[in-house]
């Protein structure tokens, strides 16, 4: 796989704040954000996401989507 980077997108309507994504993120860029009584996963630094998609794989609510970007060679 060529160098790829990612941008996590978390759907708040689906996220139940279980925190599994936070445990598996190798870049430590996910945190829980509390709004009222609800808890959501939240990305604190999307500039260093490496598009590994571990967060997306473990999410029981399918609330995390990773937009993947990779290096292209053409000119």
């Amino acid at each position, binding site marked *: *796989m*060529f*160098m790829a*980077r990612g*941008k996590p997108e978390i759907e708040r309507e689906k996220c139940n704040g279980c925190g599994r994504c936070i445990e598996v993120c190798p870049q430590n860029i996910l945190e829980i954000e509390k709004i009222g009584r609800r808890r959501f996963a939240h990305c604190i630094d*999307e*500039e*260093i*996401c490496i598009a590994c998609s571990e967060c997306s794989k473990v999410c029981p609510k399918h609330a995390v989507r990773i*937009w993947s*970007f*990779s*290096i*292209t*060679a*053409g*000119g």
Partner: protein
Amino acid sequence: MNGLTNQDQARYSRQLVIPQWGEEAQRKLKQAIVFVAGAGGLGSPVIMYLAAAGVGRLRVCDDKEIERSNLNRQVLYSEKDVRKRKVMVAKHRVKALNRSVRFEAIFERIQKWNVRDLVADSDLILDCLDNFKTRFILNEFAVKMGVPLIHAGVRGYSGQVSFIHSPFTPCLSCIVGNDVPSAGEFPILGATAGIVGSLQALEALKYLTGIGGLLKGRILFFNGAQNRFHISREQKRKDCRVCGRLNS
């Protein structure tokens, strides 16, 4: 003579009024020498926009002739130009657009042994190439000489741009490593090359004038199919085969 003439004042009047731009920025452009590697899909918008903006000297290097299949994206060229040398046609287009630009047409392949003579005393290198083999030659030269290099690449609906200035930023090898895609006969839309090449030209104009923020240590990715932009932050690699010794 690097002052602005009355003709310059009229020609650039719409950019002279951009906040912070003014005559000083315009004079900096007029004094600049920019090396453009590749006059294809990325090179086309880069060359046109840099010439239109008033960059004083463009040194454009490409060793190819125009093919009919280039015309979907390489907007410098027309049907009557097929089989002509790209750099020569580009020179005529630029002269018609802005005759005050000094255009040096270099019909050569960039190689390790000639890169120094080709880039010479350029202030900035623009990587509008279509392969990483040549990109790495340019990157090594840019790192060695401390010349800033603006990298870009495209494919299909996607592309990326990054501002590289070793030792202040990671170099191209730090960012992409050794496992790089080969372009070959890559799919590409002209509009994609137009957007990414325009971003690259904009980055060059910001650097040359000193106005605005640059993609130093960052890559701006564009995905036109999904209308998405993303910026990723990159690190220098201590084990980088090109700039590693500078990072320790």
